[in-house]
């Protein structure tokens, strides 16, 4: 194995981590029956919030929190519009993306050209030195480990806990959940805020670790990919994790293949991650009854207490 393999695999981890955060957040949102198309907008606001706080205070911890709060704050607007004012979720989500891109540009005005040293790596002496496994498993920044923890805890939360049961109940049949006394919109709002915070963390990862800088529109469509990954994952957090790594992996492998002179059109190679997503999507949804089983029945439907 050449010297390039470990760096290539490390790049896959950095390329996938923002997608993991955003996709897992959206899994929870959609499980509660809310379709938030504004991931891109929440991500980019998270990115600038984290970067601005990071540059101003010099604290990586505060920066990460700011990313999550920034994402959740924009998500709150969406939640208020769709849950309280019963606005159309698709329209509000699209508006959130456009708003987020513009608002982040405004916030980021004074931060263009600034640099951030990046997130500290968590090195473990000796173990980090083990060839191959050491650099792959250790020496990442906290957000990489955080993304794995989030996936595991979200999977557990959704499937094994009372809170998870409530979220699924609200997403599957909000009238039933309401009739037995649960506040549908409060539960949904909590999920929307969680999704916003996760998208914000994904954005924070972009501006703090992936490419520690601020440029307008730096999310470059990753929010939309995260959205596709949720369907790809048929609303399961661990599958969203796999999907993100599949997508990140193919993206990175095609770049390396080019460097080695593999003679395939780069346009085709650039298309590969998307193509793979579609193929897997077709494969896992070919059994339509099972696909339906996974999609939350109330996805995208507003809940009105009176009716």
């Amino acid at each position, binding site marked *: 194995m050449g010297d390039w393999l470990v760096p290539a695999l490390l790049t896959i981890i950095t390329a996938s981590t923002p997608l993991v955060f955003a996709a897992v957040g959206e899994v929870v949102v959609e499980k509660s029956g809310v379709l938030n198309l504004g991931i891109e907008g929440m991500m980019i606001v998270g990115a600038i919030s984290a970067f601005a706080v990071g540059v101003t205070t010099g604290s990586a911890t505060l920066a990460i929190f700011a990313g999550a709060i920034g994402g959740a704050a924009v998500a709150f607007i969406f939640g208020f519009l769709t849950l309280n004012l019963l606005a159309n979720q698709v329209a509000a989500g699209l508006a959130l993306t*456009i708003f987020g891109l*513009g608002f982040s*540009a405004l916030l980021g005005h004074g931060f263009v050209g600034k640099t951030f040293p990046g997130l500290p790596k968590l090195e473990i002496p000796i173990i980090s030195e083990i060839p191959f496994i050491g650099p792959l498993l250790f020496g990442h920044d906290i957000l990489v480990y955080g993304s794995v923890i989030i996936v595991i805890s979200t999977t557990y939360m959704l499937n094994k806990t009372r809170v998870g049961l409530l979220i699924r109940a609200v997403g599957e049949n909000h009238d039933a959940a309401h009739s037995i006394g649960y506040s549908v919109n409060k539960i949904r709002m909590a999920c929307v805020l969680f999704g916003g915070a996760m998208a914000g963390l994904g954005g924070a990862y972009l501006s703090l670790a992936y490419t520690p800088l601020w*440029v307008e529109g730096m999310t470059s469509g990753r929010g939309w990919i995260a959205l596709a990954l949720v369907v790809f994952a048929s609303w399961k957090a661990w599958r969203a994790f796999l999907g993100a790594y599949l997508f990140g992996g193919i993206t990175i492998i095609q*770049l390396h293949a080019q460097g080695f002179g593999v003679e395939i059109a780069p346009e085709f190679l650039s298309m590969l991650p998307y193509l793979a997503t579609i193929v897997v999507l077709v494969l896992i949804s070919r059994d339509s009854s099972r696909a339906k089983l996974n999609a939350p029945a109330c996805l995208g439907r507003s809940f009105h207490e009176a009716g």
Partner: protein
Amino acid sequence: MISKKIILGALLSAVMAVGATVGQAADKRTKVGFVYVGPIGDHGWSYQHNVGRLAVNNAFGDKVKTTYVESVPEGADAARVITKLARSGHKLIFTTSFGYMNPTLKVAKRFPKVKFEHATGFKRSKNLATYSARFYEGRHVAGLIAGKMTKSNVIGYVASFPIPEVIRGINATFLAARSVNPKVKIKIIWVSTWFDPGKEADAAKALIAQGADVIMQHTDSPAPLQQAQKNKVWAVGQASNMAAFGPKAQLTAIIDDWNAYYIQRTKAMLDGTWKSQDVWGGFKSGMVKMAPYNKAIPANVVAMAEKAKEGIFNGTVHPFTGPIKDQKGKIRVPAGKTADDGMLAGMNFYVEGIDATMPK
């Protein structure tokens, strides 16, 4: 359903209104419009065009009002934006990306009284001029420096799309680097985008992992330069001075400077002397500049770079001087000759020695 449609409609029109930041005030200032492919905060291509727009504002004060639309996708959407500018009273419209060529031509036909200028394209008409900069002159200088500075003898190149503009840059870099370092190789990774900081950084990382120790880019964000800094290798900035993102890594940067051109063309439009033309400016016209050289570059290398720059300025040096062969060994520019503009504009081959296959 109706309410959905209304919301969507309202949303779309809001998008258009925001997107086209077109002032409707009935003032007497002549309106000049700009269409950018990226955000003006990209610190690269679109940023520099916007610097040029601000120079127009400064130069004409109250006589001219400039507007711009940023992040306009190439293709059908561009036609809509350009039409909107033309319809809202703009007298001169600059469209600043290669992919706006056909949309600009189409809109120019429909608005014969409006003047259009398209950057980096080759289709012209009576009211559509083209302009571009000879970035390959800057690539030549950067290639010389890269050839001297590389220790691994591998130059990594983050490329966007296989159009003549980009291929010319790769060839100019490689020819210059080879001329001072016969062992030098070039590795090229196409990212199929002009602007995606993450992907550009990933490509730079892949190049570095595969042994490149000088990173050059033909994409718009400073992310590749930043990766170079992180991995302690060299890089060349693109479009603007990107030293802030990698002060140790940036050898120099190839800077686009549109200020003088935009002022001159706006003036021509105001005077009524505007004519469709094709301008291709380089060091001499000031459209291409080099950022300050990195202090780590040895004095003799700086002297060599400066000499080449001066030579290009005086016309005694041409980055594409024969004999130049393509990869099949066919002579494209005979010995003693230099490539003419027609050949440069349509360049679609790699020169001999580049160990890569041109994407089709």
